[in-house]
């Protein structure tokens, strides 16, 4: 199968859906001629024109609100938020307006929009350009949250997101834009709420999101060399969450680590671990372990930044201990 980059995959998904549905449009900063600083949108303005690839002033709350209004009245806006860290600026429009309108109107108004943004540290971009804020939006009912882990998922989830009748937030991993993966030429969609078993194994389950899927896969390779067979699962969407697939795996392996690049405390790993603990408790041989980013603002210095994110070695080390029955949090 041909291989394309995550960036190309997103671009293709957008182009295909924009061809399919004339009510779609892209709105954000430097999305047109510049094709965004990450160049993910290159070529789209040439095909769709500036009426459907709309450059905005630097006014995130404003264009997010505009997208909500357009979505409520019959369009399907795709909002481009240059850095995931700017989500703090648009929380009111996203969480008080977009997320609640359908419910507050008793099901009468829809807000079909996609918020495309990103996550991921270790780019030496410091504390305001490196955050992974998926936990915040996952907490708000009315929003769906997708976290593609490769070009394949990026395309399939984006297409599903655009056709969804709800506000969907997609976090792409900035570090992965140039990573290639096999992506079919034929059209496909990836349904929300369907986890992907990336690798089968019977000793321990590694549940990882987005950037952490590669980390988990590398950890699984390390572990395989030592005779530990790790199962790696990518939930792909954290809202809705495919509990069933995760639980089945954990009931089989009896051990699990949940890995996500957001801060660990009050983060995504807590929710997933809690559900496993609640619903697979009697199958567990060890507590479900969580590995998130350190609870520190992301430091600029390369000497510090890399310490804040889980690595394959860290994951493998914890998995090893869990499998050996060692108490990691002996206290």
């Amino acid at each position: 199968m041909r291989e394309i980059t995550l960036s190309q995959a997103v671009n293709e998904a957008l182009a295909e859906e924009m061809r399919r549905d004339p009510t779609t449009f892209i709105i954000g900063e430097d999305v047109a001629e510049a094709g965004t600083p990450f160049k993910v949108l290159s070529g789209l303005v040439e095909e769709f024109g500036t009426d459907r690839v709309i450059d905005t002033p630097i006014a995130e709350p404003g264009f997010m609100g505009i997208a909500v209004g357009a979505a409520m009245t019959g369009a399907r806006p795709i909002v481009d938020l240059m850095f995931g860290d700017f989500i703090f600026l648009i929380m009111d429009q996203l969480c008080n307006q977009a997320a609640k309108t359908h419910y507050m109107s008793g099901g009468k108004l829809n807000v079909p929009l996609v918020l495309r943004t990103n996550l991921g540290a270790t780019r030496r971009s410091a504390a305001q350009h490196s955050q992974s804020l998926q936990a915040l939006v996952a907490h708000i009912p009315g929003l769906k949250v997708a976290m593609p882990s490769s070009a394949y998922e990026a395309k399939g989830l984006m297409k599903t997101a655009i056709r969804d009748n709800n506000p969907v937030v997609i976090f792409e991993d900035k570090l992965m834009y140039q990573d290639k993966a096999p992506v079919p030429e034929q059209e496909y969609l990836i349904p929300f709420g369907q986890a992907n078993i990336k690798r089968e194994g019977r000793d321990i389950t590694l549940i990882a999101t987005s950037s952490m899927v590669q980390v988990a896969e590398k950890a699984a390779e390390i572990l395989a060399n030592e005779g530990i067979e790790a199962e790696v699962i990518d939930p792909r969407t954290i809202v809705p969450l495919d509990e069933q697939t995760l639980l089945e795996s954990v009931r089989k392996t009896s051990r699990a680590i949940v890995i996500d690049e957001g801060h660990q405390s009050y983060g995504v790993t807590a929710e997933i671990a809690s559900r496993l603990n609640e619903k697979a408790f009697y199958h567990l041989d060890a507590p479900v372990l969580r590995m998130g980013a350190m609870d520190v603002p992301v430091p600029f210095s390369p000497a510090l930044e890399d310490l804040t994110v889980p690595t394959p070695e860290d994951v493998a080390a914890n998995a090893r201990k869990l499998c050996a029955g060692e108490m990691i949090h002996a206290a």
Partner: protein
Amino acid sequence: MASAKTNTEDYLRMYRQMVRIRTFEDNANQLYLSAKMPGLTHMYSGEEAVAVGICEALTDDDRITSTHRGHGHCVAKGADFKKMFCELLGKAEGYCRGKGGSMHIADQSHGNLGANAIVGGSMGIATGSALRAKLQGSDDVTVCFFGDGATAQGLMYEVMNMAALWKLPVIYACENNGYSEYTRTEEIAAGSITARAEAFGIEAFRIDGQDVLAVNELAQKLVARCRKGEGPFFVELETYRYHGHHVGDINREYYRSKAEEKDWRENRDPIVRFRTWLVDQGVASEDEIEAINAEIEKDAADAVAYAEAASYPDTSEVDMHVYAA
């Protein structure tokens, strides 16, 4: 008074709509005072000429966004009393199946995109509706209602900038009733509100919001110009709320005097003024007016009774409508 709409039917419909708003609010206030209404609500009484003067210049295809003080906009845009009272009481037959309540009442069938409990929260929504109209080549216009207090929200300047750059068919209607909650407008708004819009290259107007004909005349002109691609526009309407900030704001002399309230009620009431004009011009007799008033009062009383008797949503609805299918 200025004159805009020019035939008896139009005049009487405007009058009727203003009285409908006032009557709706009197009943809503009564429901609160008699502890029959859950929560709090914000009365539009005194500001009727603003909502009616503007909404009478719109069709059902045109959209509005509304505020926490939203019953007036809702009625003016064509909503039904029964569904409104049901919503205020949290009943299943309400416009939002009781899920929204007073602060989120919306009426999609008439283009009311909803009240909003975040001050300024609907400014993006209105502007986005106008962007959608432009992109889809539709000639509908969106009116964004908001209070003087909302002009302090940065969102307004962000979306005015884009509306001006992109020439969107949106009218920003600032209902300046002199107060935001318990604070006078002068204390929270520096400089000039209309100049702020003008600085973005937006044509702005400041008019008497108690003169329904003047409001309607201006609104008709601006709506027509919006349809021709000459938008956006900004209108500041001088008006007054008769009640407290919300129904529970009873003792308010610490922030505004009874004399001031009395002056507005007695000398600038939009309904009284228009009624006098209608009679003077021979559009309607006093008897005809009284008949209209009585009919509306009965409508309202019936709707209240209906809503009181209506059922609450079934408990199974609690987790319905979180996501659209």
